[in-house]
């Protein structure tokens, strides 16, 4: 069943484990058990029937957030051929589920997928609230997809994005489909994920618009990369939300200057803004500078929070919707607050929805902004 991973299982079983440097799960968990390479070794032991496939194995294999940073730091990557343990880990999760072994988390995930088609439960009310902000402008062939994760964790961001679009005279169609299936695949529910992906693609493809704006980098990755792998086509130009605003608002060059025609529309905010680049998936897409281009022109002083592997959400994307406990949010917030307090900012802008929720709740709800909120706050030309 796992023949195609044979070489990977050899390579990762004795590779010096250099990838742990980048592994967000290890950075938090700090046990050898969660090393990406040691999970592959565990897979090897399973294949060779050296150990039993049980809930302990399942637990370990869920200690991977599928972020792909191990691939970035893989020693084989130096020569351009990085090994990627994520597909193997997901495949074994799939095999374990097929065998009927399910931890509490997997059982709960399965229930939510069946009942709601996503991992976050019923977010229909939140979707309606988001839709209610979409008031004026012409459609211009634009469809906006906010995924269930974004709705559940930081609905303020898409609300602000829509208001900003409206101010630029764009009234997007807001997608009723909220799930790409990517996280569901990562958990190991392969068949369910592909079925959701097909439904989502059918829905999107049947709408007569030419551009699809996607709020989250992860959903963008799913639609542009993962769908290719599973032979699903999207018949529209798929654009990441930050790229959309970049093209709409600024001149793309090194000094991060606003488009001349838009300078009059923005006020420069006095004070220090601290940007937290928390979107591991955006880095995975090698598209990590767009938020900086958008934010830097809007504030008189700009600093960045240190890059931390922790932002890649050790429980995400496969696991964290169900582990989104107050304890976890508080811990995440406290880690960030230590660094934030050193800088004493007037605002903190984060591109990670989980950090956004954590800081709003445990630091200062008025000082924490998503990128669309920061843009909206600075946009003064209401009538234009």
């Amino acid at each position, binding site marked *: 069943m796992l023949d195609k991973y044979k070489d990977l299982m*050899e*390579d990762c*079983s*004795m*590779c*010096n*484990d*250099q*990838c*742990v*440097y980048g592994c967000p799960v290890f*950075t938090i968990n*700090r*046990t*050898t*058990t969660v*090393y990406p390479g*040691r999970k592959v*070794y*565990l897979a*090897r*032991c399973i294949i*060779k029937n*050296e*150990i039993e496939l049980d809930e*302990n*194995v399942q*637990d*370990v294999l869920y200690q991977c957030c599928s972020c792909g940073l191990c691939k970035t*730091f893989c*020693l*084989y990557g*130096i*020569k351009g051929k990085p090994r990627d343990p994520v597909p193997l880990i997901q495949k074994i999760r799939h095999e374990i589920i097929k065998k009927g072994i399910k931890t509490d988390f997997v059982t709960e995930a399965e229930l939510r997928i069946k009942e709601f088609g996503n991992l976050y439960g019923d977010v229909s009310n939140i979707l309606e609230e988001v839709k209610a902000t979409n008031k004026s402008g012409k459609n211009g062939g634009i469809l906006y997809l906010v995924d269930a994760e974004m709705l559940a964790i930081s609905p303020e961001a898409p609300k602000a994005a829509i208001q900003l679009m409206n101010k630029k005279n764009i009234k997007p169609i807001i997608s009723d489909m909220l799930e790409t299936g990517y996280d569901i695949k990562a958990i190991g529910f392969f068949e369910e994920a592909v079925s959701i992906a097909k439904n989502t693609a059918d829905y999107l493809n049947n709408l007569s618009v030419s551009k699809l704006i996607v709020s989250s980098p992860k959903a963008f990755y799913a639609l542009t990369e993962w769908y290719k792998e599973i032979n699903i086509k999207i018949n529209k130009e798929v654009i990441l939300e930050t790229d959309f605003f970049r093209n709409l608002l600024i001149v793309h060059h090194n000094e991060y200057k606003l488009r001349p025609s838009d300078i009059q529309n923005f006020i420069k905010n006095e004070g220090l803004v601290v940007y937290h680049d928390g979107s591991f998936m955006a880095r995975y897409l090698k598209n990590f500078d767009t938020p900086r281009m958008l934010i830097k022109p809007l504030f008189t002083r700009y600093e960045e929070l*240190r*890059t931390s*592997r922790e932002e890649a959400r050790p429980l995400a994307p496969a696991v964290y919707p169900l582990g989104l406990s107050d304890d976890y949010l508080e811990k995440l917030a406290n880690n960030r607050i230590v660094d934030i307090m050193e800088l004493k900012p007037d605002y903190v802008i984060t591109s990670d929805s989980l950090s956004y929720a954590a800081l709003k709740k445990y630091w200062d709800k008025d000082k924490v902004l998503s990128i669309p909120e920061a843009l909206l706050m600075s946009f003064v030309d209401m009538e234009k």
Partner: protein
Amino acid sequence: MKTKVYENNYNELVIEEMRKILPQDAVSTKIVDRLAVCHGAFNVEYKWIQAGKYPYIPDVVVWPETTEQVSEILKIANKNKTVVIPYGGGSGSVMGSVFFNGGICLDTKKLTKFILNAKGMSVTVGAGWNISQLEDELNRFGYTMGHFPQSMNSATIAGSVATSAIGTFSTKYGKFDDMLIALEVVLPTGEILFTKDAPKASTGINLNYLFLGSEGSYGICTEVTAKIWHQPEARKFSVYTFKTTHDGFEAVRKMVSLGQATLAVVRLYDEYESVFTIDAYKFEEGYALLYLGFEGRKDQVDLEMKISDEICLAEGGIYKGDQAAKQWERDRLDTSYGLGTTHLPNGAAESLEISASWDKLEDVWLAMRNAIAPYAQIIHVHFSHMYHTGGNLYCIIHTIRGKDSEDAEKNFLKCVKKSLDACVKAGGSISHHHGVGTLKSKWMFDEHNNGFEIMKKIKRAIDPNNIMNPPVLGLGGEANVG
């Protein structure tokens, strides 16, 4: 080979006592946790993986978060005479953490204290800090430790104490011996020992040296205080070819011993290891290759490059720009070439690193090459850490012979024996920075003569029940290897 079953084989009493003093999830007898720490990064350990069920695994894994917890664990282990092996990044290449007889694996990676002493130019950190992550943290504040071992992305800082390690920029920043200021160590009896963070003291023997290179046999290092430096303004490289390795030696010896230029990186590749790079860059066929690296103020770096250039040219060196060295800088963490051989069913590759004084280094180099030649398919040698009085020789051996992993293990261990015998005979020291582990413990008497007996006496004095990683360094028992 002894094959140990994966069934639980532990002393219930010891586990029970540890569960009383540690958080619930800090003690595990699960097979998934025990398998994860069963191996380091030496090729023979991989051969065991290839052969089937892993033969040696710990009975229990514990993850203490404080020094006091480490102390309590060692008190329990000592009372029950249970073996304890500390486990850091798992990147060791001398079989220094093999659970030949089961025991407790004490994983140090949850010890993560961080105290920056900017005025004192030092940092005090918990044993479990990943070296690359620690360097990132220091960079945030504008500092560097200057410690860049090839294993830095996985190794822990206490691993550098345990093996008396070194990084690739050692000629400027020093060996880890030079970086180390003070230690906190838990002795096998549970007593906690601190050494003082004085820059130098004339107050009896320096106890840091009891633990530096001790490989977990005298206690468990829980905190490390090490030197830091301001981050350098500039980093530059230069490359030279030399007609012979001997000519390269002369140039390096003069550069280092004249004391006129502080080099950061010195890497001299012998005529054989240079072949691939010489070919790729179309340098002179059959020549040896020298990379020099410089760090510091821009004008200082330029001056040091000028002085080094004069010396290299005077010794017959030909300047080749900086591209080959920059490629080395980019690729320096890559170990895939050796792993490619080790992944073959009958293949094994690994490096052996020794040191010798200038007057012996060339003899040791030739003696080792000649000794291994009949048994190895590829031998690469370079000299990558240079001192006033001598240098390090890094020998990468590939063996591909026989039919299976057992043959590969035997062949490689034969190469180890031949090369270390030759090294000792020619006056070299058997390990420069990887440690001894259980791989080289048989040569400890040759290395130290009666000094080895003194090390054993110290071991008996501070570890009366011989619980701490007994077979490493040959101090507390025989290893079941080779």
